[in-house]
């Protein structure tokens, strides 16, 4: 399968009051044509920064310190602003969490969708623009598209605004769509509608998708591959179904168990103790070690090497082999319930 986007050893530093921190540390990712990659992590894990680094959209205090971003063989990290602007919006689309902030409240939906065609295709004719806008709004299933062209963003519901933002970003049939928590601000029943739409568009256009999310379960329903980030690094990656079936990194195991589901509601949740380390005070060895039930001296001394196996799976954990051969009790060291959960 053709690789559309490949990030190699991406390292991004941010200058802040607390000094310089490495927000993205040696991150490598591969996105294949027509497939969706989930980039999963908690806040501060570097997942959004990874996307911004790839697109050359870092904040002014950020700098790409090392690495390549190969998009169809060209290195985006070496391009200047003009070259990048030609690619973003045309060949790569980006959808953000809250469409209310990514749409301009002072312009009508029609003007904002039309802008894409004006800038990238040089279309000036009003009637053509209108026709193209209606077409693309219908593609994202906005009812009565023609009448709604002259509405303003505030007149749209959250789900409809996100559809507009998707319309703008798929208008020119990009080969890659980067979605940063596209459904987090939406209601649960609407989230799945938007994901269904994205999936449909992906199949129609054979688009590749990078789907940034903190929700592992949602990712599993929508994506083909997954990369799990923790404290600025990727700790495990592979085909998402395999990772779900047999998670290898203790952090992935912990995340999968921490979520309440409707079937386990009467049991006690197994929480991961502690919290993600601050990027200014990272442990010397593995970054998950202070919270890990399986940590050994090796984990405290040195950051683990990649352990690779099977069908493109890898994990950055010294104990991967033990985990895979079942020599580690996946429940070991997990906080033992003090008392049975509240009786029902």
């Amino acid at each position, binding site marked *: 399968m053709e690789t559309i986007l490949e990030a190699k050893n991406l390292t991004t530093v941010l200058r802040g009051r607390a000094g310089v921190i490495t927000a993205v540390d040696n991150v490598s990712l591969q996105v294949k044509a027509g497939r969706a990659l989930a980039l999963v992590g908690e806040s501060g894990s570097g997942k959004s920064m990874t996307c911004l680094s790839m697109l050359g959209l870092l904040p002014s205090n950020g700098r790409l310190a090392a690495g390549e971003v190969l998009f169809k063989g060209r290195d985006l990290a070496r391009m200047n602003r003009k070259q990048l602007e030609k690619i973003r919006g045309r060949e790569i689309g980006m959808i953000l969490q809250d469409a209310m902030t990514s749409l301009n409240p002072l312009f009508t939906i029609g003007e904002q969708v039309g802008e894409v065609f004006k800038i990238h295709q040089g279309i000036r004719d009003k009637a053509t623009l209108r026709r193209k806008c209606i077409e693309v709004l219908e593609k994202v299933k906005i009812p009565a598209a023609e009448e709604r062209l002259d509405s303003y963003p505030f007149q749209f519901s959250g789900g409809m605004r996100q559809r507009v933002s998707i319309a703008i970003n798929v208008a020119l049939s990009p080969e890659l769509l980067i979605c940063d928590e596209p459904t987090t601000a939406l209601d649960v029943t609407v989230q799945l509608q938007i994901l269904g739409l994205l999936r449909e568009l992906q199949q129609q256009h054979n688009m590749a998708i990078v789907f940034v999310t903190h929700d592992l379960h949602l990712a599993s329903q929508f994506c083909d591959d997954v990369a799990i980030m923790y404290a600025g690094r990727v700790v495990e990656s592979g085909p998402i179904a395999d990772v779900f079936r047999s998670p290898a990194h203790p952090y992935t195991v912990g995340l999968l168990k921490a979520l309440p589901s409707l079937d386990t509601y009467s049991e006690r949740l197994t929480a991961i103790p502690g919290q993600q380390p601050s990027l200014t005070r990272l442990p010397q060895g593995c970054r998950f070690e202070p919270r890990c039930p399986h940590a050994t001296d090796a984990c405290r001394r040195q950051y683990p090497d990649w352990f690779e196996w099977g069908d493109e799976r890898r994990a950055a954990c010294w104990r991967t082999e033990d985990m895979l051969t079942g020599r580690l009790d996946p429940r070991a060291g997990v906080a033992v319930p003090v008392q049975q959960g*509240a009786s029902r």
Partner: protein
Amino acid sequence: MSDAFVKVRDLRKTYEVRKGLFGRPRPLHAVAGVSFDVPAGSTFGLVGESGSGKSTIAKMLMLAEPATAGSIEIGKRDLTRLDRKEREQFHLELQPVLQDPYSSLNPRMRVGRIIDEPLRVHGLLGAAGRRAKVAELLELVGLPADAARRYPHEMSGGQRQRVSIARALALDPKCMILDEPVSALDVSIQAQILNLLKDLQQRLGLTYLLISHDLAVVAYMSQRVGVLYLGEFMEIGDAADIVSGSRHPYTQALIASVDARSGGASARLVSGEIPSPMNPPGGCPFNPRCPHATDLCRSEKPALRQVADGQWSACHFADTLAPLTRCATAGGHGKTPAPAATAA
């Protein structure tokens, strides 16, 4: 129920909204008549999407917002007629824990001062007594003793939420209103806080009113669950019955959307979004999105009626509605609805 600590009867909140400066005010029914009981020492979960009125109910219970009609009784005290002194007393009994531990803690105060503020305001305990109480509270919520000297910005989201729980507990309340207590937190931290809240409830015999958009969180924490839609209850029942034997299409849609994200087979998803409460649909409020809606649903509003022991549903077809087939049933609480004559 005679031992109900919180008793809410036909509670309503109507806002007068005008369109433009000189527009005629129109009523917006944020809460359109809800009744429920919360037995002492138990948890009642309110679940609903944005705009369902769940936070408005919480505000009225905290006396932050006057009710338009109806009655609230908390610990045998009628909230609608309290004089100033009684109001003060009331706040000793009921305390809130809010969603965002970033905006609900004063950034200029040290944690110790934040926690003992309620004690100072109510003039309880001397300086030494307050110090001892703060130390005791910190331990109770699982924070180290030196946390008292830190500022909120030095803490992580999970720690801050522990601080707000400690502050809420300072006055030894009997009841806590938990308004989306974990939705701003990372997945690995959510489980810690939910478990802490459950432990505290058992140790201190607290009564909880839990508000969340996340059915899985509500089912995990609560004995009784009320499902809100456009300011009204669609269904009320025991958590186990709601999850495994829901008798309302909206609840079923919520369950399906939780299931779908964790790989459940049944995807009885709904279309559309929650309508604006400014112009609610005629008949059943859920009818425009309901897969089972008939002419009856469009013309006549179904009343909330008892459909099983301890379970109420506001659906014309509650008796004939097919039970939701889920991939796994929870704890075998399933009660298959008996096929009965069509409700008219």
